């Protein structure tokens, strides 16, 4: 039996569970208990097989221990490219929990939910101001759902003009959600090769554009962190054939207060409140993916929209051209409160300073690393940079190894092997939340790993060495999937901490 330490593995909830324990109590029932619950056995079950039985203490400890096995933004730099892991201000958590918001039922009549509706209205106006768009829907629950919502609107727009068209063009540097969303919206996806600068090839685009193209989906700055300098010409080429231009807002943190998608000829785009506007990523969500549109696309927005009538706000359901709904109710409202609080806290100057600092930090890392790591594209960087492992080719150390070794230095690795157009890519986005000292510590770790790769490649290739678990067998996990706990065949006692 392994001695217990602060890094010991934590048993599963179901292994901690013991029959007869409880962590919850209800007040006495003040209505008659129906003798047989008015329900016959056709509907009911006596118990849920294997369901946990723990005291409150044990649950508190279980999850507290689990939490200690995670890296988090509050522990340090989290440089995941295109994920914008910025600090989550604590006041945002507090205001989202104000009882007036947190206890507001979505079926409340409008007159009893004016505070929620006003907040949604004001957040929409703020996003319009920041992005230069005419309207926003707040309904999509995440960026990918925002993309899907937007493409459905594009389809409705074209259909009303007589032909929904067939093709959505997507650069080869795009996120995987772009083609996946276009596919669900019923479009054929055509991938476009990037040019030697990693950007859209304008000549190829002009050649390709025809009346069968419904939409070009563009991430700007793209996933190399490079601004599409020919964005206006791209928009013209797309519009000349009656198609629309969509901007994936994953990288909006690069230019808030500096430039606006609406001025670039963008017809629709989504923003990720959980990236640019600081709502927490929560270990994988919730997010929120509002979609902004120019006036011609407004009729197709999901229902309901929030409309102002004098001093009051109401939900408008009667929108005959709307694409419908992509989720129940109005969206991830709790995220709206947090994002709006963030916008208010920063104000116009702070928002600009946010993007300026994010870009400065990325360029600072680039300057301090480009002599040891390969920089595949030398275009000016905005908020993120892409490096590769090419300079270490002769050492046998790859991007994955560098990523794992960074953990030993106390950092979360960058996004790796993305964008797909760079072999062995490391996509680094520091955000504005990092001090120069934190950036220096990261840079020093990266430089030392490069030295280690030459001096002691095995050390890097077998990293991490100091994490709660080391490299995990992912192939085995996929080949023989174990996706849930099941009771052990023999119910004999198992030693504590046994895996």
């Amino acid at each position: 039996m392994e001695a217990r330490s602060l890094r010991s593995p934590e048993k599963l909830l179901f292994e901690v569970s013991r029959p007869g324990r409880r962590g919850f109590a209800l007040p006495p029932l003040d209505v008659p208990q129906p003798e047989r619950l008015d329900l016959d056995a056709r509907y009911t079950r006596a118990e849920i097989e294997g369901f946990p039985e723990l005291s409150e203490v044990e649950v508190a400890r279980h999850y507290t221990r689990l939490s200690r096995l995670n890296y988090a933004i509050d522990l340090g730099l989290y440089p995941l490219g295109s994920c914008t892991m910025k600090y989550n201000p604590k006041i945002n958590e507090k205001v989202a929990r104000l009882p007036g918001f947190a206890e507001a039922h979505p079926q409340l009549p409008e007159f009893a939910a004016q505070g929620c509706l006003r907040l949604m209205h004001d957040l929409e106006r703020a996003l319009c101001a920041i992005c230069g768009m005419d309207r926003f829907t707040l309904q999509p629950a995440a960026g990918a759902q925002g993309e899907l919502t937007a493409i459905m609107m594009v389809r409705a727009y074209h259909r009303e003009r007589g032909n929904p068209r067939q093709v959505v063009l997507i650069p080869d540097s795009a996120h995987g959600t772009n083609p996946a969303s276009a596919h669900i919206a019923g479009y054929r996806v055509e991938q476009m090769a990037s040019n030697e600068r990693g950007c859209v090839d304008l000549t190829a685009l002009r050649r390709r554009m025809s009346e069968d193209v419904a939409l070009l989906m563009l991430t700007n700055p793209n996933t190399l962190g490079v601004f599409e300098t020919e964005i206006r010409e791209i928009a013209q080429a797309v519009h000349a054939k009656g198609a629309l231009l969509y901007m994936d807002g994953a990288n909006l943190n690069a230019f808030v207060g500096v430039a606006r998608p609406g001025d670039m000829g963008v017809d629709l785009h989504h923003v990720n409140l959980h990236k640019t506007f600081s709502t927490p990523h929560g270990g994988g969500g919730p997010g929120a993916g509002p979609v902004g549109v120019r006036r011609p696309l407004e009729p197709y927005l999901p229902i309901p929209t929030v409309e102002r009538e004098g001093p009051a706000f109401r939900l408008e359901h009667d929108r005959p051209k709307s694409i419908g709904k992509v989720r129940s109710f109005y969206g991830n409202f709790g995220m709206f409160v947090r994002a709006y609080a963030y916008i208010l806290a920063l104000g116009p100057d702070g928002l600009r300073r946010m993007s300026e600092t994010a870009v400065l930090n990325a360029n600072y890392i680039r300057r301090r690393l480009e002599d040891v790591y390969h920089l595949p594209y030398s275009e000016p960087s905005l908020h993120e940079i892409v490096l590769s492992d090419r300079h270490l080719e002769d050492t046998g150390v790859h991007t994955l190894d560098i990523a794992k070794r960074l953990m030993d230095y106390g950092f979360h690795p960058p996004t790796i092997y993305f964008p797909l157009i760079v072999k062995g890519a490391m996509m680094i986005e520091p955000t504005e939340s990092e001090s120069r000292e934190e950036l220096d510590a990261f840079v020093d770790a990266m430089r030392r790993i490069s030295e280690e790769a030459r001096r002691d490649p095995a050390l890097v290739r077998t990293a991490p060495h100091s994490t709660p678990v080391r490299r995990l067998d992912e192939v085995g996990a996929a080949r023989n999937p174990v996706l849930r706990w099941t009771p052990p065949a023999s119910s004999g006692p198992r030693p504590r901490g046994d895996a």
Partner: protein
Amino acid sequence: MGDGHRYIPASDADREAMLRELGVARIEDLFASIPGPLRLQEPLPLPRALAEQELLADLSARAQENRQPGGAAQFLGGGAYRHHCPALVDHLIGRAEFYSSYTPYQPEISQGTLQAIFEYQTLICQLTELDISNASMYDGASALAEAVLMAERTRHAGRVLVSDRVHPEYVQVCRTYLENLDVGLTTFGARPDGTADPEAARRALHEGQAGSLVIQQPNFFGCLEDVEALAVVAREAKAHLIVAVTEPISLGLLKGPGRQGADIVVGEGHSFGVPLSYGGPYLGFLAARQAFLRNMPGRIAGETRDVDGRRGYVLTLSTREQHIRREKATSNICTNEGLCALMASIFLAVVGQKGLRELAVHNHARAVYAQKTLGAARGCGLPYSAPMFNEFTVRLPIPAEQAMRALADRGLIPGIPLSRYFPGMERDLLVCVTETNPRAEIDRLAEELGRLA
């Protein structure tokens, strides 16, 4: 530009020093790749930055514009349910290691999140009595749409048959998702007792093939469906049975739909400790039989070993997903509702086996009492006779919308006027009763409804 901002460490001096090292004169020069005409010359037209205390005051005032959502006696359900949440849940998810971490793509430093997902998947399988679960979807409605698409991927029938007792917003979301995919959605009707009619389903399936048959348990009007009978109908027609659950507290008392013949069970998990928060963030759950393993949408965690033989967890079967498969992925979902799934897990862990049953029994007992009491109020009636869980329909002597306005002035939100969704149901009110509605409140509601006639 001023002296910096509390959320941004770099001071003006830091910026100057870093710019010097970059050999860049001014911060604006870093944006030289953005064409000049696109660069804003004016600050954004937004209010000035607020200090934290101003921010709190501003948002508190907005929150208070909602008319006492917690204070008024409320009987609202219809896809969202007010329940007591143990303090432990919010305390634990307030740990930054959970809420300020990313999707666990790097498993060595994300075991907390990964193990919690694995446990969540187990809890959902136990509740639904099915084999596999994913790591969460956006909400119940979009989970249903994804389930219909998943069923369609294996059946290619080009049609889904949906009970008209399913939450109208869920149906609406399915229609939106299916709109561009050559999959038709048709509905079938109900019996006079308020439940989906298996004979109507059988006829509809006889008229044309469908990849799936969709019902809701308990249904939108509160009635309990005969899942087993509907499973037989689906099986005969080689359609997958999808059961949607909007009030999963019911699963503390009711059989898991998987045991009753459902092939896929989806639902809204917010009742498990996630705040009402005006409709979101919530979480969708999606569980299925083993046969759907490689067709599942979204992330899934699996157990494995590290190089030293220690047990650990990873995201697995990712060749289904968009970041690998792009347009051929089983879904476009990337970010899901991770933290809400964690809340649901903690809620279920602390409420536990006995607690969940007691909670379900209390909800049901109060609703039974309320149904009897309200049904006996002067001028009120009960249009449906089928058993219910914690929600039921009352027919009022006057239009329900009018009744709601009258009662709201007296501090009561009596339920959802069904005309909001179904124009023909002017006098029907959907009433929900949970453990948060004491008897005195129910009695007062009956009294006030009795005065309407």
